[in-house]
């Protein structure tokens, strides 16, 4: 009882606090210095139609590298704890219905194409490497769901993931020698604004990030599937 009263008092206090904050909030009409710099010069300097992508990949490129590294660490730790079982294919699971198998055969290529579209067009439309990678991993999930005992080669995922990570860092280092610094955008020409081959190094980086994220998440899900014991 005392605890409930305490919780209610806490909620009322928090509500009062947040109400005060919301009441005194005034949206600012003008951007601050950094934001206005990005808004005015971003499209010109980077050449990307999607300004968010321009900020995430070029001005804040190191942050993206850090995020990819965190995702890599997560996948690596999960894979470390999920040891493979030899008697994997003897597992007794309910087979999928024929309808799902046929639909998966039709839809999986479509989903892969959608994922590639999302990360190739990252500098023109909403989307980018992370989203496209997640969509590609979802396509693999559909494949695994339709055929639960399917063997998927996880070495392939590891290979794709390592090489895309390596190329990402390599492009960053190439920026030091060929342009202004690490992950500099201007080692490729900016091209025509709003077309597919524009914005310098940005589409290349997003393709690499998309491949890396997609293969990492696919590898993680495959590990879960492969090491499943009989239930």
């Amino acid at each position, binding site marked *: 009882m005392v605890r409930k009263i305490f919780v209610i008092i806490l909620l009322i206090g928090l509500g009062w606090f947040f109400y005060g904050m919301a009441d005194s909030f005034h949206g600012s009409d003008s951007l601050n210095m950094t934001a206005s710099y990005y808004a005015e010069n971003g499209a010109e300097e980077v050449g990307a139609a999607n300004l*968010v992508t321009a900020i995430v990949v070029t001005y804040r490129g190191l942050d993206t590298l850090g995020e990819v590294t965190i995702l890599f660490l997560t996948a690596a730790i999960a894979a470390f704890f999920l040891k493979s079982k030899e008697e994997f294919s003897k597992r007794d699971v309910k087979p999928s219905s024929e309808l799902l198998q046929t639909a998966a055969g039709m839809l999986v290529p479509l989903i892969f194409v959608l994922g590639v579209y999302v990360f190739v067009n990252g500098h023109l439309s909403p989307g980018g490497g*992370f989203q496209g990678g*997640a*969509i590609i991993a*979802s396509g693999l999930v559909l494949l695994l769901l339709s055929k639960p005992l399917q063997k998927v080669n996880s070495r392939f995922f590891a290979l794709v993931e390592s090489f895309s990570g390596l190329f990402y860092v390599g492009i960053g280092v190439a920026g030091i020698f060929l342009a202004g610094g690490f992950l500099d955008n201007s080692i490729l020409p900016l091209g025509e604004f709003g077309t597919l081959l524009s914005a310098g190094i940005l589409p290349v980086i997003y393709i690499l990030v998309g491949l890396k994220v997609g293969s990492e998440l696919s590898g993680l*899900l495959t590990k879960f599937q492969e090491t*499943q*014991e009989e239930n």
Partner: protein
Amino acid sequence: MLSVIIIIALTILVLAAAILAVQTTNLVVAVISAGLVSLMASVGYLFLSAPDVAMTEAAIGSGLSTIIFFYVLNRVRGKDHG
């Protein structure tokens, strides 16, 4: 007018789904409710004209994390209950 109604509706649904996700004792229901929170929040982000964030939230928050949760639940459940 419609914009205010959309934002209020999404907020109510997000709050209700979050409370259900915390309060329920069934793990399946909890995970689906958490997915619903992401779904509605993603429509909210799109409404606040942030399509990048909306797509990330839909693809990762609502889609892939739900799928990974179910794979993990499938691994940890026992032989006869669940």
